[in-house]
């Protein structure tokens, strides 16, 4: 019985970008995290309607120092991550983990800056609804930075010394996507938490 066949053995087994299923998986994660962050922002604005003064009396607007530095650090970190991404596409192991170490360092700086940022909020999570929503927004983004940095460390360890396979370059490539999301959403969280207290 002669049936027409479609031979696919010549097709590549390593692809990058939107061709790779893992890319879509990470985009799915970003949609979920993005929706969650957007809803927390919506709750922030909704609660704003219950206050005459924002932030409420007795709570100073948050100091901008640490947060602005954090903004610079995170936006700057996009550059080395782009290098990691290009190195991964070229499957160049050394430049990939070198650039990744820079990103990890910047991530660590960002995490370190979070401590003064939480103090800069000028209130506790249980002071009032403003404190609750501000701590939650900042806390959520900090969790993203933490998980993404831990993931970077894991990938760097794999690139440095682990049993690396060619398919892991795709993981490094899509991990850059998640980092861009983390750095990008910081602008929204920064505007909301630190500038929102002044303009809203």
């Amino acid at each position, binding site marked *: 019985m002669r049936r027409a066949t479609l031979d696919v053995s010549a097709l590549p087994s390593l692809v990058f970008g939107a061709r790779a299923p893992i890319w879509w998986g990470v985009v799915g994660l970003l949609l979920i995290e993005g929706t969650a962050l957007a809803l927390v922002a919506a*709750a922030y604005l909704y609660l704003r309607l219950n206050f005459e003064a924002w932030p409420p009396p007795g709570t100073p607007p948050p100091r901008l120092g640490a947060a602005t530095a954090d903004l610079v650090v995170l936006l700057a970190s996009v550059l080395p991550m782009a290098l990691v991404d290009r190195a991964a596409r070229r499957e160049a192991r050394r430049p990939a983990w070198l650039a990744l170490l820079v990103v990890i360092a910047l991530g660590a700086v960002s995490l370190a800056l979070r401590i003064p940022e939480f103090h800069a909020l000028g209130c506790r999570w249980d002071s009032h609804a403003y404190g609750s929503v501000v701590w939650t927004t900042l806390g959520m983004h900090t969790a993203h930075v933490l998980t993404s940095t831990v993931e970077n460390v894991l990938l760097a360890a794999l690139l440095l010394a682990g049993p690396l396979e060619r398919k892991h370059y795709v993981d490094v490539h899509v991990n850059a996507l998640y980092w861009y999301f983390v750095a990008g959403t910081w602008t929204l969280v920064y505007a909301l938490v630190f500038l929102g207290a002044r303009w809203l």
Partner: protein
Amino acid sequence: MSVVAAPDRDGEAHDRAALALTWATPRGLRGWLSTANHKAVATRYVVSAFVFFALAGVLALIMRLQLAWPESRLIGPDLYNQIFTVHGSTMMFLFAVPVMEAMGIYLVPLMIGTRNVAFPRMNAFGYWTYLIGGGLLWIAFLLNVGPDTGWFSYVPLAGPAYAAGKRVDIWAQMITFTEIAALVAGVEIVVTTLKFRCPGMSLNRIPLLVWAMLVMALMVIFAMPAIMIASTMLAMDRLVDTHFFNPAEGGDVLLWQHLFWFFGHPEVYIIFVPATGFVSSLITAFARRPIFGYPAMVLALISTGFLGFGLWVHHMFATGLPQLGESFFTAASMMIAIPSGIQVFCWLATLRSGRIVVRAPLLFALGFIALFVLGGLTGVMVAAVPFDLQAHDTYFVVAHFHYVLVGGAVFPLLGAILFWLPKMTGRMPSESLGRWSFAVLFVGFNLTFFPMHRLGLAGMPRRVYTYLAQTGWAGGNLLASAGAGVMAVGVLLFAANIAWTPGRGTPAGADPWGADTLEWSVPSPPPAYNFVYLPVVESRTPLWTTPTPAVVTGLRTDVPEVLVTDAIDATPDHRHVLDGPSMWPLLTALASGIGVIVAIFTPWGVTLGAVLLLITLTGWFWPRGVPVSDTARERA
């Protein structure tokens, strides 16, 4: 398409043996716990969901027993509140959404001609997380720590001030588990449907059931975060004194209702949309013709998906919102009746112009049409603000949502179970038992829920554990309770049919119904790798138009490799090796489970969970053993 001599008989046998070896799951308990096969995980999901359905059904019977006559002292208010809350929460979070996603995870890979879902291990992780969530709720309930503030847990009643103890915390954490599982399955179905279709299955050749699952999965991705944010806020309010819902400190009790119903209404469409997919498959198979108006049906599904997010405020018409807002949401709530109408009209046209063969699965689809039209119409009624002010939070609404959820989703689901049981178990269910279970269920359902329309208009509010004799509600409630008994008999008949089939049903073979989609081209029950050679599709009804399709060759049989195709017109793009079985998904689910459950008692549970997750996720991610993809063939 190169015409190369098809692999001859023993070449195919060799490939079949190699594939069986590559895609096999290790034996024994360890194998059972570590499987990543989409059919194994999906079957467990469906079985667990139906166990929870039975448990919640027993609770419904107890509630009906308590309400059978006025001022009954069978059950006190405290236990009754727990029972109706666990009944609602189990049906919505532990049965309806998971079982629809599980049917998707079972059927989508088979219907689009691939061998597994996109991320097999994550799929297993999703199931274990769901199971832990279900266990948490039911063990707590049996320990008298079941939530007692309703499946929607409105604040401030569910807040720290008026809900003492850990009951509502159990509910909030159960939500976290079930929503993680739902999101995982959602992403699985989206990526599998977009990237793993067999060659030739362009967007306009995707079966309607797969379209329904895709729309559901996308709705899950955008709806579930709302309930996770809301339940996390509630848990924080209750455990670490945040003030999201504290009116005295700037919080807002309506914030909870907005966040909950922004998830709540899409959730009921997440449950309903896959049911339309089942009905389309059933009607296509038993009207012996392709579905009428395929493009209209797909557009109806997509518009239902979008519109579902635009009408959540119709649950809050009685909270005194501004007039303009209410009219907008009345319009949106009425507009969503149009896509549903389109689907019903297309089904009717298909039936009208087909040569109908009546079998038990089709009866459930026909029963669905009758019940869903009634439910949809009462939906249009409560969409209008003036009438909703009379009907809101009464038994009229209880009748409405049981007509659209039981009539609109459970009936098609039961029809789908009967339709695909031969494929899952290899044996045919009993036709007479199927018909009898439908008849008893249909009569019992109407007997139970139709009188509730009248009870609601007579002033009976929801969630009352008893009522006074002089209210005049005794007759309707007794009738509803009797109907519930009949419905229970119907469920038992259906369960008997399912239990009887694997043992003594007649062998079904690959295609007992002569249906049109790809899953009927593989043996029943399908082997672990589904297709020896992936099919090439040339039409919307592959088995009817090209019974012996062209096949894809060249995929490796020594590694679990699948073909990844382009998202739009499914042209082959590259070969992709999937992960095999592993224990890490179970361990990761346990790690997150321990963290979330301990977090009920102390906030440090979150840190404990984070540390455990770090360990298990590292274990899951860290590659071990022979580098699979870099084998000699690749380097050559």
